[in-house]
């Protein structure tokens, strides 16, 4: 092996310029692969983390997963009826406290009841349609990150006045309201009430911060004109990745629509999967192109070295030794390129992570990146394998050379 290594090393060393170009190709391929993977997976992780933090892991609403069957459907199994108006259902989850108590007995995580409502917010002559969420401050802090997103006041500030409201900071700024400002809420059920701004929050999601207000459960129930109504149970599971399984079980148990965060964001998660496929395709293409450089240099060396190969074979070098020489040359290029690519890729990732930018959709001003050993190993392995393949074919051709053909033609 030492002999093979020494001949291989001598070959690549004496073709410094070509070797450096080939190494640069592999290095660039590996570096950009590492950087792209860090960037794509970093942003993906960050996105999912934000999503998981911002949304309830499971949301149980008062809608039914399947519409209830009409009495006629139940009687005549083979018949099909059209134009029937469904039964009018009373909104809200039936026996919400009993449902919550039942779920608490087995769901691993925290639960809270809430009321989702819509209202028109009037202040200083402006009317804005906003989402009103009635919450229980005590249990809310266990389920959502609202408490940590408070800019002014806190969740307990909701108890300060009879109808207190926490506004998204962008919404407050939009209408010019401040803490202690009095505004009017008018619901679709025709209820109009005065409310006092008790605090502001900033979730980081522009849509939420511009259109959402939190009130106490009973305030939202008044707006819905229905005492005791609970139309949503939100759950924060101990393991967010188990949310889909748990939501399915809840759906079966309660009959209500229980939506996990994965289901709610299915389109986005599908887009992420598609993005990953695209990313790895591009990364693979980069490394493939880099391997062409390796193939080129090894082919060139074997072409230039046909006479040497012939003489080594005439001396008694075995085919496998000749093959090994050129494969080792390819591996030397691949290994050096991969090692330099790791360093270059790390520096590129660091550089990318330090860039500042503004996006209108969120407050993050740095690109999230993920430093993962997996990216380095994967890029290195692909670079090595592609170098190996790129080196193998010229090496095999070299080993098959018939020395007499070369010796006869040599001058």
């Amino acid at each position, binding site marked *: 092996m030492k002999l093979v290594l020494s001949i291989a090393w001598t070959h690549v060393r004496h073709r410094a310029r070509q070797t450096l170009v080939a190494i640069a190709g592999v290095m660039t391929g590996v570096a950009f692969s590492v950087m792209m993977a860090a960037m794509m997976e970093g942003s993906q992780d960050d996105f999912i983390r934000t999503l998981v933090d911002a949304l309830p892991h499971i949301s149980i609403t008062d809608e039914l997963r399947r519409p209830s069957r009409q009495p006629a459907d139940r009687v005549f199994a083979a018949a099909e009826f059209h134009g029937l108006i469904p039964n009018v259902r009373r909104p809200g989850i039936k026996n919400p406290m009993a449902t919550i108590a039942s779920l608490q007995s087995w769901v691993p995580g925290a639960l809270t009841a809430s009321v989702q409502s819509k209202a028109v917010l009037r202040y200083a002559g402006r009317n804005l349609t906003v989402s009103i969420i009635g919450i229980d401050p005590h249990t809310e802090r266990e389920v959502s990150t609202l408490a940590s997103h408070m800019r002014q006041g806190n969740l307990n500030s909701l108890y300060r006045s009879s109808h207190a409201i926490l506004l998204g900071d962008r919404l407050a700024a939009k209408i010019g309201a401040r803490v202690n400002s009095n505004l009017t809420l008018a619901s679709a059920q025709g209820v109009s009430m005065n409310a006092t701004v008790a605090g502001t929050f900033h979730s980081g999601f522009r849509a939420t911060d511009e259109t959402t207000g939190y009130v106490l459960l009973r305030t939202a129930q008044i707006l819905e004109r229905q005492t005791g109504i609970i139309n949503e149970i939100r759950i924060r599971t101990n393991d967010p990745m188990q949310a889909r399984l748990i939501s399915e079980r809840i759906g079966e148990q309660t009959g209500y629509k229980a939506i996990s965060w994965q289901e709610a964001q299915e389109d986005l998660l599908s887009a992420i999967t598609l993005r990953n496929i695209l990313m790895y395709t591009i990364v693979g293409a980069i490394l493939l192109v880099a391997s062409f450089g390796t193939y080129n240099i090894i082919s060139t060396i074997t072409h230039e070295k046909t006479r040497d190969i012939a003489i080594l074979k005439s*001396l008694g070098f075995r085919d496998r030794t000749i093959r090994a020489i050129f494969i080792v040359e390819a591996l030397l290029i691949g290994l050096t390129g991969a090692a330099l690519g790791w360093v270059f890729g790390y520096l590129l990732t660091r550089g990318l992570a330090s860039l500042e930018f503004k996006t209108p959709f969120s407050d993050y001003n740095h690109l999230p990146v993920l430093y993962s050993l997996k990216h380095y190993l994967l890029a290195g392995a692909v670079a090595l394998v592609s170098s190996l393949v790129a080196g193998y074919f010229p090496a095999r051709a070299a080993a098959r050379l018939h020395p007499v053909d070369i010796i006869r033609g040599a001058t």
Partner: protein
Amino acid sequence: MSPPLIEARKMTKVLPGEVPVTLVADIDLAIAPREFIAITGPSGSGKSSLLYLLGLLDLPSRGDVLIDGRSTTAMSEEDRAEVRLSRLGFVFQFHFLLPEFSIAENVALPMRALGRLSPRAISQRAEELLTSLGLADHLRKTPDKLSGGQRQRVAVARALANDPPVILADEPTGSLDTAATAQVFGILRDLVLIRGKTVVAVTHDLNLAAQMQRRVHIIDGRLAQDELTHRALGASIPPGDSAGSAGQAPSR
């Protein structure tokens, strides 16, 4: 009489094609230890082809080549490579040294490939061989820094590296001037005289061939003449300096 080191039996080589070309045909030849043989013949007569077949660089289309009494046509390519490495040494018209390696490294290559000696012993033997051929001052030089005659002496040293009993030389003086020719020829002759090697050399130089013990003449790929020249080795030394040649070559 000693058993032959190399023996060709009805050896024929035909290049296939639309019009098959016969390079050598029905050659029967036995080469004994300590022989100094010239293979002569006109250009294109098949001299080099015969040498390549005897040296296992090529496979005969028919017939057989026996090395140390063993048939080689049935051998695997691996085994044939092993025989080339340990039992045969080659010297070509164009020295065929690896240009990126020093001459000491070039000489060490066959020993490293065989792997029977330690790195230190390989290095020592390469230096001794080169010193015995008058190249002690050039050990670390690459071949391009040497004259044609010096390069050919390096090629001889490399052929001797694994101490093979047979040296096969293809026009070893074909690209050398008169002085270098005399020097290289003297070395080859001394290999037989002093080291007890068998040297088989292809040459078109009838003057040189006449100074070798045996002359095998090839015409159109067939053995036209196989004669002993009855020349006593060393009786006539060609012009030039052959001092410090294989006479001091180390034994293993």
